[in-house]
């Protein structure tokens, strides 16, 4: 096998080439070799290119993942019509041995050609169980403040890696719902299951800090608060989280002296460092300027296609809703609609 147009070696189902040089092979089944190739590319840095790929079989799902890898030429032993259309739409040069109408695989029925790359990618990662998230189930949850019934028989199920935007009028119980999930309030009825269990795992939680407190937390110290116990290279983890949120330069600055946008980003870095499987955000961009809201949305988008924790954002902000292609649920009259 000297080039992507040559036959695959025995036991190899996918091979990735940097120009004429093979850089990665896998003998895995289903879509796993493509996820492995993605991980390989992410951890290996840059290549001279062009990247070429030889795959044994490619339906629509594999085509989405292949395109997302950034390859420019593919050679496929058996390809579906829909996959060919998608490759053509993205300007990828395709060679194939056998063409079929569709690949007989249940995954193909889940994917639609009109999906965006990110949308399809999220769905496939969830199917491959490649998310860091946990499943969250709220069953018949109810809660009252005194005589006022705030939440009534609320049901919600989020699969591992799901992300949802929660909206509703002021006082509709959005923040209270988060507080119930966090264990800060006790429900009057119903239960909350995390991966099918009532035991509550560590949860990443961000709420708006708007007050300037006289206490000398540095940004570095705030992010350090998020680290899970037993982390070996604490400095590297904190630095990584700060850099990812674009606030490494603020590491020695007093957290409570930062602007609202900077605070939100440092807080986000804290949550990223925690590697929590469930993240809850209570109006994280309220009172942020437009650029900060866009930056925040970018990081959330990146999170939702990489680590893919399960996430709920309580939100009023139109820009954030438009920037995040997540399902929206509304709380009305104490119920989720």
């Amino acid at each position, binding site marked *: 096998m000297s080039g992507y147009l040559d036959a695959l070696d025995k036991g190899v189902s996918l091979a990735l080439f940097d120009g004429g040089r093979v850089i990665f092979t896998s003998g895995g089944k289903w879509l796993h070799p493509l996820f492995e190739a993605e991980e390989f590319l992410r951890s290996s840095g840059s290549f001279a290119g062009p990247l070429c790929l030889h795959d044994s079989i490619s339906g629509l799902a594999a085509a989405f993942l292949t395109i997302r890898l950034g390859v420019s030429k593919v050679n496929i032993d058996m390809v579906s019509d829909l996959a060919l259309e998608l490759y053509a739409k993205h300007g990828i040069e395709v060679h194939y041995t056998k063409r079929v109408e569709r690949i007989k695989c249940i995954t193909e029925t889940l994917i639609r050609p009109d999906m965006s790359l990110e949308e399809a990618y999220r769905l496939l990662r969830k199917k491959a169980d490649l998310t860091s998230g946990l499943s969250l189930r709220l069953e018949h949850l109810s809660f009252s403040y005194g005589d006022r019934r705030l939440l009534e028989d609320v049901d919600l199920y989020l699969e591992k890696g799901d992300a949802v935007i929660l909206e509703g009028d002021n006082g509709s119980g959005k923040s209270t719902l988060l507080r119930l999930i966090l264990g800060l309030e006790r429900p009057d009825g119903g239960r909350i299951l995390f991966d099918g269990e009532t035991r509550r795992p560590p949860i990443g939680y961000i709420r708006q800090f708007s007050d300037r407190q006289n206490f000398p*937390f540095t940004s570095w110290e705030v992010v350090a608060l998020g680290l899970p116990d037993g982390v070996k290279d604490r400095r590297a983890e904190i630095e990584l989280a700060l850099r990812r949120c674009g606030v490494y330069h603020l590491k020695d600055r*007093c957290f409570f002296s930062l602007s609202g946008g900077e605070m939100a980003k440092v807080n986000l870095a804290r949550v990223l460092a925690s590697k929590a499987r469930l993240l809850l955000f209570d109006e994280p961009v309220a009172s942020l300027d437009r650029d900060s809201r866009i930056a925040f949305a970018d990081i959330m988008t990146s999170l939702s296609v990489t680590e893919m924790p399960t996430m709920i954002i309580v939100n009023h902000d139109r820009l954030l809703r438009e920037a995040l292609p997540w399902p929206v649920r509304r709380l009305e009259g104490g119920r989720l609609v």
Partner: protein
Amino acid sequence: MFDLLLLPPIYRALLTLMFAGSTFPLAGVMVLRLNLMQLRYTLMHGLLLGGALSLALDLPSLPVYLAVCVLTVLLVLHMSRSGGMNMGISSSFMMVMAVALAAVITQVADVPSKDTLELLWGSPFTVRWPELAAFALLSVAIVLFTILDWRTVNLMFFDRDVAISTGRNVRAHETVMVFLIAFSVAMSMRFVGALLIDALLLLPAVIALKRATSVRNLFITASLAGLGTAVSGFMLSLFFDLPPSSMIALASAILYIVVPKRRVAG
């Protein structure tokens, strides 16, 4: 003056103040950050109740006062967690109750109120070896708690809800913290006097807050400021033959005035 340091009451007092001066400000940082000032007042007034009880029942004052402190803290914690009152309100409630009960006991048992009030004016020179050992133990406990529980303490300082969201047993940590503060106040009241409580517990923390660049730095600075003012105030008191309480309080006040507040970018 240095000859005086060879006298047991003097060097025991110095050692006591060194322990208290270097470690009580750590508890002071907790009082300031978690807004437990009202609890501190309540414990001070609890001394009146403890004093009245010990005089009325003819029991040793320290165990009775410590028992009153423990009971007060437990009631404050219980009310703040289950009665819909925050810790400030429940502390105020207990403060009023303590004073009221002390007044009733004083009246009913015919306890001279002057004797009860005298308990407020402890002196470091009255510290004996067992009390010095108790101060040392309490100091070690405060330092160990601060170091071993560093992450949780910081999380509680940052945001209580965030601390709970990480899965930590915040209530348990909070209880230990409040008891350490309570014992610091109780020991200070009984042996170094009411005046010195703020000078030892709070002023070093307030001074450190003016300069600290990080939370770690805040604790270290508070401890050093407390040790510095306690020792220098005590030495000045020996030199000028003045009460140590007032000299230490004065040293703290002067340090607070001369230390400029750090400019924070932002």
